[in-house]
């Protein structure tokens, strides 16, 4: 029987989860600050010592694998032609590959945009544009701009297939680390994620973790196999679908509020209604969105920006606080932990607002249009109305004294029928923070991963 050690090299913490396949469960966990700035192995060894102490003796593991979001995670630039079409498609591919999309560009690139790719320390560029046989002039222009800039980072081309050869020649002429994959939008509104996502993952493993000083950990462990968000996405997908005889939970939504971002995952069919007209770019079954302007500390000011003057007044009046001051305090002191009940309540309020706004952007919208033939429904985005399972993960939610309050903000609190948010879901938390670990474990023992996940989800 086997023992596995599953690791997440996170931006702040290195987390260890030890699994015993005979026991069919997690038997220990530990964490320590991530030390990627000096030497990533130090933090790992400290965490490992702690783990051995908890267990009482050192353990020999049959397999030790890791995911990573250390050193800024996987930072990508998504480039396309039209905002609603190939730009959106490129963005979805990056997010689905577990990346942080720090830059998004449309149409012809200009030199200051290319400069930003350097200053923002982007790891990989995804260049899309044009349906197959469609516009090619723009991607050719952009490929030249990117190549001439000598970025020194991999560029993945997933645009109009008709100019693949020309693009490859541009890359080769400029000695660019270029890669050609299938068009992310081969036909108008058709989304094609798979090959581009695989290529991004491959580059992450081959180049990026090396460049970030993460690869040296592979002298201590077997392998870093995924970016952390992709591990979570895989766990969610397994949890929803089940595996062979082991049933899943059905469609799920997973919420993760962090200091800098709010991440939402939905694993569900985009629409189940036959009486609606779907508009816009095709939606992925496993969808991840990341809101870089909604977070508890680094991005707390984004919450403020998303509020109207009236809303701010209402919150201050209702809660008897000065929300602007509270938010600014947290933004200047990002390591602040709530010290008393009132600070804790304010943190919860912020988390609720992050979740509410993030779901606003993640969930689809329904439009009712009166036509001479009667009412017609047009749906854009995903219909999450009959989602039955909403799961919270990440410190802010797991450690909250009232996680249900936070998770409830995913639902249709304002009873707006045109927002396709979950209606009556049950709420769970990933109380042992094991989703990432089960995403890793699912790589080689999906049934075990699924059983453990189901055991460790706590209904709230």
């Amino acid at each position, binding site marked *: 029987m086997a023992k596995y050690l599953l690791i997440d090299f996170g931006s702040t913490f290195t987390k260890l989860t030890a699994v015993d396949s005979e026991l069919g469960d997690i038997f220990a966990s530990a964490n320590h600050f991530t030390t990627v700035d000096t030497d990533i192995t130090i933090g790992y060894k400290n965490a490992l010592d702690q783990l051995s102490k908890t267990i009482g003796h050192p353990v020999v593991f049959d397999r030790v694998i890791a995911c990573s979001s250390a050193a800024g995670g996987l930072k990508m630039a998504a480039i396309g032609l039209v*905002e*609603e079409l190939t730009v959106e498609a490129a963005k979805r591919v990056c997010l689905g590959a577990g990346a942080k999309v720090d830059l998004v560009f449309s149409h012809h690139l200009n030199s200051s945009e290319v400069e930003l790719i350097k200053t923002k320390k982007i790891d990989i560029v995804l260049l899309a544009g044009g349906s197959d046989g469609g516009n090619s002039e723009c991607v050719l222009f952009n490929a030249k701009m990117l190549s001439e800039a000598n970025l020194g980072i991999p560029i993945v081309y997933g645009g109009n297939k008709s100019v693949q050869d020309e693009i490859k020649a541009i890359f080769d002429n400029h000695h660019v680390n270029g890669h050609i994959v299938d068009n992310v939008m081969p036909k108008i509104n058709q989304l094609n994620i798979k090959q581009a996502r695989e290529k991004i993952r491959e580059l992450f493993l081959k180049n990026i973790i090396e460049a970030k000083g993460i690869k040296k950990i592979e002298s201590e462990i077997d392998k870093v196999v995924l970016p952390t968000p992709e591990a979570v996405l895989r766990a969610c997908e397994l949890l929803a679908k089940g595996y062979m005889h082991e049933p899943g939970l059905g469609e799920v939504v997973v919420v993760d509020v962090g200091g800098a971002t709010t991440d939402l995952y939905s694993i569900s069919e985009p629409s189940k209604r036959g009486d609606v007209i779907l508009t816009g770019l095709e939606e992925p079954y496993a969808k991840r969105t990341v809101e870089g302007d909604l977070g508890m500390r680094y991005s707390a000011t984004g919450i403020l920006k998303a509020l109207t003057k009236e809303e701010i007044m209402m919150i201050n009046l209702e809660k008897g606080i000065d929300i602007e001051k509270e938010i600014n305090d947290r933004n200047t002191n990002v390591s602040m932990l709530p010290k008393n009940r009132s600070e804790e309540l304010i943190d919860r309020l912020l988390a609720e607002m992050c979740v509410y706004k993030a779901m606003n952007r993640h969930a689809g919208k329904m439009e009712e249009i009166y036509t*001479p033939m009667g009412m017609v429904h047009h749906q854009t985005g995903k219909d999450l109305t009959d989602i039955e399972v909403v799961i919270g993960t990440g410190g802010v939610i797991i450690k909250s004294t009232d996680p249900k309050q936070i998770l409830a903000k995913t639902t249709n609190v304002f009873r707006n029928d045109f927002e396709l948010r979950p209606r009556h879901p049950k709420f769970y938390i990933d109380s042992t923070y094991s989703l990432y670990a089960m995403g890793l474990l699912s790589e080689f023992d999906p049934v075990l991963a699924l059983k453990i996940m189901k055991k460790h989800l706590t209904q709230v």
Partner: protein
Amino acid sequence: MKSIVIGVIGADVHAVGNKIIDYTLTNAGYNVINIGVLSSQEDFINAAIEADAELILVSSLYGHGEIDCRGMRQKCIESGIGDIFLYVGGNIVVGKQDFSEVKQRFLQMGFNRVYPPGISIDMALNDIKNDLGE
């Protein structure tokens, strides 16, 4: 000979005007690709790409034209025909609305010419000649 794609967009089945437009434009010396009624934006765009057309002339009679036409220019751009002329006419919105506002909305969406109800295809022939030549 310049090519023009014509058709009736969306779930619209009004076929008579479409036949007349086909007849009129053909007689005026254009190569007409008529994709008929019940045509999607993609049908128009695909036909225009294949025929190397210079104008897409959209008809909408049943009042649902605004939603049916949304995003069409963006799709043309991705499809490599971003500069193609887009016309729309027929009874493009429900009932009698202030047409200058309706027109403004369609121009915003990237249509080059927007025609109110009651404008027959003959009345638009001059515009076509001006835009395409011949």
